[in-house]
């Protein structure tokens, strides 16, 4: 739990908050590799980023999503308010289902993406990466039968990802968890209570089989212990930001600060992005008569986006981090830039997400890659191949029930 501010500490207000899982995570953070997210002390990695990544892909691993922002929107106007805010049609969302959404400014620039959980007919949970209360309040203006509660500090959550994740939850006693389908929600009893204080959604940010586990902060440690006991023989391990970033890139998921610059934080004109540029066309539902940014997005759909986010398979094995992209091997005609890149162990390919001028997508794409070898810098030009499908989308991510272990 958050410790009470120490009155004798001159930096009390500056110190990072501790997640409800902190005591257990701190004990396992062998490298003391902490960074921060939304004011929380947050692990970059615990032991070794590659090890944690392999746990995600080969056994299972937990990621602390307490710092993620969580808002409960309730009341008769909640659905209408959200439906006007996000680009997807959430009137189609059924109860106990989750959907991935994004929302834009009036000008159609992406503010953030996140997930909406439909908890009841007029009760929704919205989660996202950055604090969004100000925008929610603006979006709520004119919707009077609506209550917005910031639950960010009041819901503890862990993401449990990897092929053995279902087995671990079964071992923990979550009856019927194997029948939970992707993007569905279920509630379970916990800590001997008749109630169902544990909410499980089959969601995640790794593209693999996985679940997100939601519980009250005062049960957090008890829950951790039960989970880790159940996971003991299934290779359970906490993972941090670095492994997340590898897994999500293989799955083709976008990250703020990498693929997109949140519109409300963008200073330079159009240095933010639209859903079309980010290849999120499938999230924009023009069958819906109105949503924020619709007019601007309609215009962009008809004119075509200037840039398009693409997946690249790059020859060689040098990650194309921060590379410029060209239409020719001589690197004379610049056509874009890489946003995220890595050597993917599971796909065994040199992969990247990149913003490329839409007009240049038909030509061959070349990346100018800088890398260093024992303090000496080198560069090379590598040919890129457009990849349509996510680099990593295993059958097990969708299988219901998932394979037993």
């Amino acid at each position: 739990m958050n410790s009470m501010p120490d009155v004798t500490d001159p930096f009390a207000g500056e110190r990072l908050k501790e997640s409800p899982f902190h005591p257990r995570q701190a004990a396992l953070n062998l490298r003391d590799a902490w960074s921060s997210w939304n004011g929380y002390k947050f692990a970059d990695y615990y032991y070794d980023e590659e090890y944690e990544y392999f746990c995600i892909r080969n056994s299972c691993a937990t990621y602390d999503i307490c710092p993620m922002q969580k808002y409960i929107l309730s009341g008769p106007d909640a659905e209408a308010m959200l439906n006007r805010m996000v680009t997807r049609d959430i009137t189609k969302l059924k109860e106990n289902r989750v959907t991935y959404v994004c929302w834009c400014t009036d000008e159609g620039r992406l503010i953030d993406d996140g997930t909406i959980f439909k908890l009841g007919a007029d009760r929704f949970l919205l989660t996202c990466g950055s604090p969004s209360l100000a925008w929610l309040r603006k979006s709520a203006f004119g919707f009077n039968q609506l209550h917005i509660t910031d639950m960010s500090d009041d819901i503890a959550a862990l993401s449990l990802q990897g092929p053995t994740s279902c087995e671990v939850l079964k071992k923990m006693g979550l009856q019927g968890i194997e029948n939970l389908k992707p993007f569905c929600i279920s509630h379970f009893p916990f800590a001997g209570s008749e109630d169902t204080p544990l909410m499980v959604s089959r969601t995640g940010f790794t593209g693999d089989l996985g679940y997100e586990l939601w519980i009250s902060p005062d049960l957090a440690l008890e829950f951790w212990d039960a989970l880790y006991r159940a996971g003991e023989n299934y290779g359970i391990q906490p993972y941090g930001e670095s492994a997340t970033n590898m897994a999500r890139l293989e799955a083709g998921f976008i990250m703020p600060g990498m693929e997109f610059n949140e519109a409300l934080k963008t200073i330079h004109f159009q240095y933010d992005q639209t859903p079309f540029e980010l290849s999120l066309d499938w999230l924009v539902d023009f069958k819906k008569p109105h949503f924020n940014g619709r007019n601007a997005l309609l215009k962009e759909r008809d004119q075509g986006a200037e840039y398009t986010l693409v997946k690249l398979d790059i020859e060689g094995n040098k990650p194309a981090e921060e590379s410029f992209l060209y239409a020719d091997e001589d690197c004379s005609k610049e056509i874009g830039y890489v946003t995220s890149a890595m050597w993917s162990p599971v796909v065994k390919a040199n992969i990247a997400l990149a913003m490329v001028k839409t007009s240049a997508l038909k030509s061959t794409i070349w990346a100018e890659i800088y890398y260093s070898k024992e303090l000496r810098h080198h560069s090379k030009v590598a040919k890129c191949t457009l990849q349509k499908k996510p680099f990593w989308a295993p059958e097990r991510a969708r299988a219901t029930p998932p394979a037993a272990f």
Partner: protein
Amino acid sequence: MQTYDNIIIGGGHNGLICATYLAQKGQSVLLLEATDGLGGLATTREFYPGFRAPVAHSLSHFSETVVEQLNLLKHGYTPSSEVLDTIGLNLNGEHVVVSGEHISGVNKADQQTYADYLVLLKRFAKMLKPFWLKTMPRIGDNSFPDLMTFGQLGLKLRLLGKKDMGEFMRVATLPARDLMDENFDNDILKAVLSWDGLIGSKMAPRSPNATVLNMLYRMSGKHHGAHSLPEGGIQNLISALHNAALDAGVTVKTGALVKRIVIKGSSSGLAATGVELADGTLISSARVVSSADPKQTFLNLVGANNLEIGFTNRINRLRCDGYVAKLHLALDGAPKFTGLKNPNGRMIIAPKLDAIEFAFDDAKYGEYSKSPVMEIIIPSMVDNLLAPKGQQVLSAHVMYVPHKLKGGWTDEARQNLYQRLIDTLESYAPGIRQQIIHGEILTPADLEQTYHLTGGHWHHAELSMDQMLMMRPTYEAAQYSTPIPGLYLCGAGSHPGGGLMGGPGHNAAKEIIGAKKEL
């Protein structure tokens, strides 16, 4: 079901004007007015059996173009060639009288300066005049007509000559007080000349903003800012507008409160397709043109769920709180102002600029002033139908009376304000208290209720730098069209603003007709 080309919401002068222009082009027009009469804030109301008074009580800048194009003279409009004197009342009876280009009651220096001052302001007013009847350019849209308007404004400014251009740039946003102090000595004169820059706004003599522009806007009228009343009073103008509308084929319905603008959604987006009345009647139309204030139009009639988030919040933040109250008195005879032969002018009680400033200070903090300042007309002197024979009606605009009074507008608060106003009047017109048969006070909150007007604001929305020209009421709705296809604005909340002028109604009609041509 019958469907119209246009439904106009509101039968104030702008709604009537817009309706008439459209009907003259052969379009079918249904005008819906919530109250039982026409005229909106220029309605002449019976406030006591046999006694009637117009809310807006004089004309300063009614558009001559509109008079001409709508043939208002033919429809019975009888403007007066005479202007009203503006009389700065002095407790001791030594009043300052502004009579066209002449002033009395001030020293020679002030008289001479006034002549020069007037010449300069007239030049500025003349330069700006064409732009009040033009659609303002769209921000960020470099279309040819928009660039032309910008270009014309630049050219007009340039044609003023280097010195005057500089001077215009200097004074345009000057507080009234600075402009007065650098020109005149006489306290009453300074107050009187500032008056038309201030009235209707939440600005006082020391406020830098659009006071001078407001003055120049009002100087766009036939008499360069001097006030006048048509024969037959304000009602004469409204009747002429009504006749013109009927003659052009407009269907006018009063007692028809629009509850909702019907917005239909399809995969091609939203569009306004008609209105729903308070009684549930649905009427469809190709276009809905609203002269209701922007907040009411967008937030109540359209609804936030049909609008963009940023846009909705900008509309919500529009400053619409009115600061002018109306006092109507039924008198058993003409009031006798100390030292004034005949109260047939526009009389101003504001002994000095600080009197206005201090009244404003009270209102800023949610109170009405201990020493209110006001403008008085006895309209029954021009229109003897307003009161029974031998009796009179007094009409006063009182500044600054806040829409949101601290503690709310209780009966007691209204009574106290009323007494304070009568006390003030009594000191300038001894004996007036005994002449009162009946009195009514309309606070901005009352105007809001009676005339369906958010905040009860004179201009529907404050006419200040951030809410004028291509920002009026806000960008993306400043060219009369709105983010909703088929929905237009045509009231005082649009460029050029309020006052009995007709610009918004005229400009909106031009936009609608122009847009139709392009189709």
